[in-house]
């Protein structure tokens, strides 16, 4: 043995300086760990908050939808009259022309042939159908002039929400005088030379930016020229030289063009507003002017003068040599160029006019809940996907729940404990971790496409009995995916039933089956249900496997049964998100919100079940 230890000496170490140091270090380590934890939680919370706030703010954009109140004179063709009189509600009349006429009436002044398309497209493509439905409900309206609200096109709604910006007022102090239009309809507006400063600055800035870009292009081409020249010097054969020479020529050409371009743009940038007249292109900010009740748009501008078109009449009488005193007119700049937005300047002017006249109306958007998918963003809704999700979930539950419960009760209560059941257990646990897309592939092969088999010359197909895109196929795939979750949850809650209950029942002479069904299963059921609901919630949010069985088709009708084609909420979100229309962005967020609400409700139900039936043994 080693030398003896003096424990009194050891005890003294508890109060020494070294022990205090050790204690401080321990506290410090604890503090550090706590700080790391708090930081981690804060980051997670911030990420969640960011996600939720993005979704909520975007959703807020579609809570209301915008209508325009029009006066329509209901005149219908014979064909439409027939459709209107038909009792079948699926026979719908599209009173497109009536709506077009109503819009033309709403817009002050004449609208030319070329503008009529723009006028028609301010309302939704289905506005005529909606009016038709209303007339169908009340045939007495035919021949009358009635006010009606037409749903605005998505681009107009976005414009009114200010997504592409609204015309900004720029300084305009003096008097404005407008000349008589020439034969092409152009007028010249004269104003104080100090007015409209910002438009010049904006254009100048844009030109300078363009010039900078042209310079960059020039530098790039110069680089290519340098490299090719060097290669040319090192070239050995004539053939090579000839090829390099031709490439060099093209680079030089491109460089020179870029240089000229940049020089011209720089020149323009410096002369704008300095006497020279500048032609406003479609890629420039738009210059608009409101004078009295009318609107003008200018295509050429210089200090004190601008040339443009009358978009809306300046007065009730002909606009001959009209003068507007200070305050009677305003100049506006629409910073976003016409070419980069889906609303023409004419439509912008119309919308401003409608809004001034109080014709625009905001209504709570129930359409997004009640209508199904549509190609037009303003018409699209989630109802079809909700119905599809509902059918899919029903199928999933009906397949996965009984199978899962039976499998878990067999494995827990009846199966002998041997290598085979161990193997099954391990595999079920592994199945729960299999990526869902694999289940999608499996489902596609077995349920939808079928697997061609050739045995000894006999050719046949295994599976392939479910229609593509149907909630039945989707539900079957999701059932495959949910099954392991339910089995694992089921086995855990069956195992949680104390064996004393089994002993009690068996001791009374109950059979194994009676013990399982009378005692074990009822006691395990809340746990199994909780697990199943969580599995179903997971399935409700699943996208990838459903894409594979074709549940991302464009379907405008909610599926009437599990066999008809449909899509589900997550695949609808996926489809909408890849749509280019801007309004679909907001609708995607709205659909996500609704999906989240469903998921939260399901999880709340699971928590409630667990709390309500929680039992301590």
């Amino acid at each position, binding site marked *: 043995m080693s030398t003896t230890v003096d424990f009194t000496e050891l005890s003294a170490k508890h109060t020494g300086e070294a022990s205090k140091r050790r204690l401080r270090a321990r506290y410090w380590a604890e503090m550090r760990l706590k700080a790391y934890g708090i930081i981690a939680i804060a980051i997670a919370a911030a990420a969640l908050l960011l996600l939720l706030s993005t979704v909520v703010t975007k959703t807020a954009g579609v809570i209301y939808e915008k209508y325009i109140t029009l006066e329509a004179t209901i005149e219908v063709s014979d064909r439409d009259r027939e459709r209107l009189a038909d009792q079948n509600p699926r026979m719908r009349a599209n009173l497109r022309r009536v709506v077009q006429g109503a819009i033309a009436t709403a817009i002050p002044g004449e609208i030319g042939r070329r503008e009529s398309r723009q006028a028609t497209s301010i309302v939704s493509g289905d506005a005529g159908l909606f009016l038709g439905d209303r007339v169908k409900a009340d045939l007495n309206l035919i021949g009358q002039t009635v006010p009606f609200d037409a749903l605005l096109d998505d681009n107009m709604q976005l414009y009114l929400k200010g997504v592409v910006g609204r015309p900004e007022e720029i300084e305009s102090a003096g008097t404005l005088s407008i000349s008589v239009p020439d034969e092409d309809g152009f007028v010249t507006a004269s104003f104080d030379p100090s007015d409209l400063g910002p438009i010049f600055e904006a254009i100048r800035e844009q030109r300078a930016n363009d010039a900078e870009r042209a310079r960059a292009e020039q530098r790039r081409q110069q680089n290519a020229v340098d490299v090719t020249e060097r290669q040319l010097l090192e070239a050995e054969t004539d053939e090579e030289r000839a090829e390099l020479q031709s490439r060099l020529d093209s680079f030089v050409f491109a460089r020179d063009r870029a240089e000229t371009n940049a020089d011209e743009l720089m020149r323009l940038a410096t002369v704008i507003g300095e006497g020279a007249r500048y032609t406003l292109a479609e890629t420039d900010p738009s210059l608009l002017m409101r004078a009295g009740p009318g609107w003008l748009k200018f295509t050429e501008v210089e200090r004190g003068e601008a040339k443009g078109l009358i978009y809306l009449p300046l007065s009730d009488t002909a606009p001959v040599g009209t003068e507007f005193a200070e305050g009677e007119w305003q100049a506006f700049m629409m910073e976003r160029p016409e070419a980069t937005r889906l609303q023409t300047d004419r439509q912008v002017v119309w919308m401003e006019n409608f809004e001034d006249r109080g014709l625009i109306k905001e209504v709570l958007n129930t359409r997004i809940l009640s209508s199904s998918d549509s190609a037009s963003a303003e018409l699209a809704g989630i109802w079809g996907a909700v119905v599809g999700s509902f059918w899919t979930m029903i199928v999933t539950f009906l397949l996965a729940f009984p199978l899962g419960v039976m499998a878990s009760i067999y494995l827990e209560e009846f199966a*002998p*404990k041997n290598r085979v059941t161990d193997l099954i257990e391990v595999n079920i646990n592994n199945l729960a971790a299999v990526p869902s897309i694999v289940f999608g592939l499996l489902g596609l092969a077995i349920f939808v496409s079928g697997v061609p088999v050739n045995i000894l010359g006999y050719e046949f197909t295994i599976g392939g009995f479910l229609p593509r895109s149907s909630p039945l196929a989707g539900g079957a795939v999701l059932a495959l995916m949910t099954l392991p979750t339910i089995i694992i949850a089921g086995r855990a809650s069956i195992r949680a039933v*104390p064996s*004393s*209950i*089994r*002993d*009690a*029942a*068996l*001791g*009374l*002479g*109950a*059979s194994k089956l*009676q013990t399982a069904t*009378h*005692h074990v299963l009822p*006691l395990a059921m809340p746990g199994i249900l909780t697990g199943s609901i969580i599995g179903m919630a997971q399935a409700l949010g699943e996208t990838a496997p459903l894409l594979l069985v074709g549940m991302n088709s464009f379907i405008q009708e909610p599926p009437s049964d599990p066999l008809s084609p449909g899509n589900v909420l997550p695949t609808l979100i996926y489809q909408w998100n890849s749509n280019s229309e801007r309004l679909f962005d907001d609708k995607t967020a709205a659909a996500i919100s609704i999906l989240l609400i469903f998921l939260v409700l399901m999880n709340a139900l699971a928590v409630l079940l667990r709390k309500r039936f929680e*039992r301590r043994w």
Partner: protein
Amino acid sequence: MTETANIRAEIGEDQRGVPSGEPAVGVAESEAPTTAGEIKIRCKGVDVFYGEAQAIKDVTIDIEDKAVTAFIGPSGCGKSTFLRCLNRMNDTIDICRVTGEITLDGGDIYDDDVDPVQLRARVGMVFQKPNPFPKSIYENVAYGPKIHGLASTKAELDCIVEQSLKRAALWGEVKDRLDAPGTGLSGGQQQRLCIARAIATAPEVLLMDEPCSALDPIATAQVEELIDELRRSYSLVIVTHSMQQAARVSQKTAFFHLGLMLEYDDTVKIFTAPSHEKTQQYITGRFG
């Protein structure tokens, strides 16, 4: 001599103790009809294996009708395992294997044509921890008769439930709240409920696996009283850790040690003049 005297003194403290020297008939015996001696269960050369390990080695024992037989012995000696052989509860354990012969009224209970479910209706069991079903008191007692078809009408079932609860000395305490959950009763009441539940299936033999080990002394006394009462109608086998309890309630006692049954005799004999050295050491508290 001194040791024996000590044991006598110990037993003498108990009111129901038996004066030494007298045959294996206690005070209770005089009240009960003397059918003791008729053999209910015969076990011959019983071996029990858990996988490779042998838990019970060659046990031969005859259990009398209308008497209480106590199994005593240190922990892990196999007395509970052996008890569970008597109604084939060991069948529920996969790796458990029983050999030898056990007969109930002359019929081999491990015979192929004996259904363990049917057997357990005849040989009831009460467990160490009170384990009422998480259902109402009524449902607890009525469950056995229901699954065995003992009652054809609701009135008959009510009658069975009432009788069983009365025999388990629980009726007075619960008759007003038969719909209350059985799990809401106190520990002693729960155990008597379990006994009532076992009685309700009209068994012939009642096995009790340490029925009082989870109970306080008052509840223990009540259950012991009940056991003594039940002896009139059933053959009872009780596993206990408490030697006082064995002495108080049983007429016959078997001492188990390391899977072997070392001694089986009248309770009085075991506690006063054990023939085996190990028994003597155990009952005097030298080990166990």
